């Protein structure tokens, strides 16, 4: 045994002094930087403007390290189930068509396309493109990939209306559809349009996912699960100049603070998945800039099972949606970077109805609740652990619903378990969840809204609503589609409150080292790193 007494007192004092030094020096620094911050923030915006205006000439060479929150699920296009996989797959594969940051369609591996009639699409393919394994990209490869996407092994549902892929010549294909489907072309901008090397798939079989081969700007080098993913430049890429960098590395850093620290100390060049709270502290750091899309397609929402009480009661659902004060939630949780949502699309998207607004009206909510006849109104809401805004989001919702007399019990579960309980087993009343964006509104309808979609747990719909959704997808005229979607949104979120109560848009924030250029954040959260270059 020790004889402590003096020793202990001394020790504790020493500890306090030590902590004091750490604490003080840090807070001093941040307050010093606070002053710098304002001027620097201004400079930053100026920088941003000039950069866009002048567009410095890209420089070749160097490597970029991206700090990401999690690893991908799968690099094989037909096995990937997560929207978060896109930033990883964009490097390896090209898509048939692609979209710009405003989600407008652009040529990809298909140079042009036309619609001879309602149920067919003709794609003119780019010539002279080679896969990383040296084989040629041609009509055969497209047929192979689309058929593979529609096969039993595939998890891709979006191309089920493609009945046949007809090869017209070596670089022309014609897709025959079973019904008119306006979403197909935009679907080809994403997973269904990723073109993998048929030769490599035939050769590697199941191993293909661990050694993916496409036509993209980067070649796969190595992967340590939940560790790092390394890509190298594809020297023969069909875009003359791109990629500029020699090496692209993704490092998995699960904790946000770990990512931020790594960026600050220069270990990584770009970090993804940054919460709005951290932005203030990051702005004080030097040589760092933010990158955000114009509008975010990711949302926080309450999803529910409309076949279970009390959500089987329309008045009850309407009471809930009117009882939510979205403005307060956005202010509290997004630090000014988010927006209140009244429909499942971001407010400035073409399919969104700019006039649709759900007023926060507790009196009306109370009245609706009374009319609903639900006694002792209460429900249990699942919270998925891997969510940025939890548990604050649910706390606020719980508080707001309590004001009109609805009791919310919460149950926290790990991500997959919550997912399974809510949607696969359909055994939960509600869940605090979110929607991830899709390039075409119908693709979102397919998985979230139509009666037999996976995320419509209660399979809630009305015949009229069904008809609207079909009609909106049967024409290629965007103005007409927009009108129909406005109607759909109004029914979905207000008149019938089908299965989702949208609450707020989730800001998508990237933070970059100043020397990194050519990166544009994508509003669907599916950014690519293909045009990045480094300023020496």
């Amino acid at each position, binding site marked *: *045994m*020790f004889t*402590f*007494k003096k020793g*202990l007192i001394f020790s504790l004092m020493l*500890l306090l002094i030590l*902590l004091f030094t*750490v*604490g003080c020096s*840090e*807070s001093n620094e*941040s307050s010093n930087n606070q002053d710098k911050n304002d001027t620097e923030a201004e400079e930053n915006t100026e920088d941003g403007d000039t950069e866009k205006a002048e567009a410095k000439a890209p420089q070749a060479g160097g490597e970029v390290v991206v700090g990401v929150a999690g690893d991908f699920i799968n690099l094989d296009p037909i096995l990937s189930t997560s929207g978060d996989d896109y930033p990883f797959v964009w490097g390896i594969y090209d898509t048939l068509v692609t979209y710009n940051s405003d989600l407008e369609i652009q040529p990809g591996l298909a140079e042009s396309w036309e619609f001879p009639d309602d149920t067919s699409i003709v794609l003119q393919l780019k010539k002279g493109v080679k896969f990383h394994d040296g084989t040629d990209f041609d009509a055969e490869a497209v047929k192979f990939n689309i058929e593979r996407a529609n096969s039993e092994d595939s998890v891709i549902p979006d191309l089920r209306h493609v009945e046949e892929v007809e090869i017209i010549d070596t670089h022309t294909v014609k897709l025959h559809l079973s019904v008119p489907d306006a979403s197909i072309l935009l679907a080809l901008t994403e997973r269904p349009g990723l073109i993998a090397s048929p030769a490599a798939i035939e050769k590697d079989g199941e191993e293909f996912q661990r050694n993916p081969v496409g036509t993209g700007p980067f070649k796969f080098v190595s992967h340590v699960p939940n560790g790092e993913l390394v890509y190298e430049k594809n020297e023969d890429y069909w875009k003359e100049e791109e990629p500029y960098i020699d090496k692209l590395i993704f490092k998995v850093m699960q*904790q*946000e*603070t770990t990512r*931020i620290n790594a960026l600050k100390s220069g270990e990584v060049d770009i970090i993804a998945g940054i*919460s709005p*709270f*951290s932005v*203030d*502290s*990051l702005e*004080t*750091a030097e040589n760092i800039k933010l990158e955000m899309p114009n509008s975010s397609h990711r949302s926080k929402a309450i999803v529910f099972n409309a076949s279970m009480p009390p959500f089987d009661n329309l008045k009850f659902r309407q009471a809930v949606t009117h009882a939510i004060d979205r403005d307060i939630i956005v*202010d*509290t949780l997004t630090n000014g970077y988010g927006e209140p949502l009244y429909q499942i699309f971001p407010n400035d998207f073409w399919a969104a109805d700019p006039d649709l607004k759900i007023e926060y009206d507790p009196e009306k909510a109370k009245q609706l609740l009374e009319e609903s006849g639900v006694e002792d109104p209460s429900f249990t809401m699942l*919270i998925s*652990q891997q969510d940025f805004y*939890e*548990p*604050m989001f*649910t*706390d606020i919702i719980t508080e707001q619903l309590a004001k009109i007399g609805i009791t919310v019990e*919460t149950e*926290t*579960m*790990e991500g997959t378990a919550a997912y399974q309980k809510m949607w696969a087993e359909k055994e939960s009343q509600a869940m605090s969840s979110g929607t991830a964006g899709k390039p075409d509104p119908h693709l979102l309808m397919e998985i979230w809204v139509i009666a037999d979609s996976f995320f419509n747990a209660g399979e809630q719909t009305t015949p009229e609503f069904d008809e609207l959704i079909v009609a909106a997808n049967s024409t290629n005229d965007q103005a007409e589609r927009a009108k129909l979607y406005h109607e759909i949104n109004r029914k979905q979120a207000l008149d019938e409150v089908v299965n989702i109560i949208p609450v707020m848009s989730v800001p998508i924030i990237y933070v970059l080292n100043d020397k990194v250029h050519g990166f544009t954040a994508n509003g669907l959260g599916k950014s690519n790193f293909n045009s990045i270059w480094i300023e020496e």
Partner: protein
Amino acid sequence: MSIKEVFHRFKQERIAFISFIFLVMLSVVAIFAPFIVPYDPNQQDLVNVLANPSLSHWLGTDNLGKDIFSQVMMGTRTAIQASIFAILIPLFIGVPLGIMAGYIGGLVDDIFMRIIDAIMAIPGILLALGITAALGISLWNAMIAIGIVSIPQFARLARGQTLQIRTEPYVEAAKISGAGPLWTMYKHIIPNILPPILVQASVNISFAVLTETSLSFLGMGAQSPQISWGSMIEQAYSLINLNPWLIVYPGIATALTVMAGNFVGDGLRVAIDPKLKG
């Protein structure tokens, strides 16, 4: 040796005794925390975010304007609860199993020891993580997991002590005079193995508090609105660039509790066996 004697000697171990008083005080705080906190620890005050320590907020506020001092006090509750679980579960499951194995001996004892060895070979935190995940993520389940992970330690100790005492003349005598095994265990073995178990129990407070903070830090323990020092540290870590002090308070609260547990253990050890005093 009577309990009175032990207590008398324990009182003379100054640091240990102070630590004991400290733990008692913590328990009192834990019991009455909801009534004596200056603020509701989950009450947001968005006007007053990241406030510095002041008379109204002794330790300042976090990014949602919640009072840190109140949170630390509520965290005490979680820590003490975890400690109680980590003592009671092994006490009522591990110790009887250990006594039985030691008393019966032979093959039963062999098998028992293999199982204990096997479980002890898995790193404690990993096992606790696995059990928590299996039971479902919640603070209660995390505490139960910590209790289960502590079972082998206690069982092993109880078995060792029983093996020693089993062959003592007075136990043999009791057996010969026809006392049943349950009676022997109750009358002779339990009183004799109690002191070392007591030492283990107080040291286990440290283990419980550290493991609970780790689990909560990893998001497998306390879930909002529950408050744990571990989840406070986790939250504070994301705010280190704004206010590094937030990380300090729950850390010190944890450390003081862990220290107290260790000191009480040391003091008890000496009080029970004065030869140990070095």
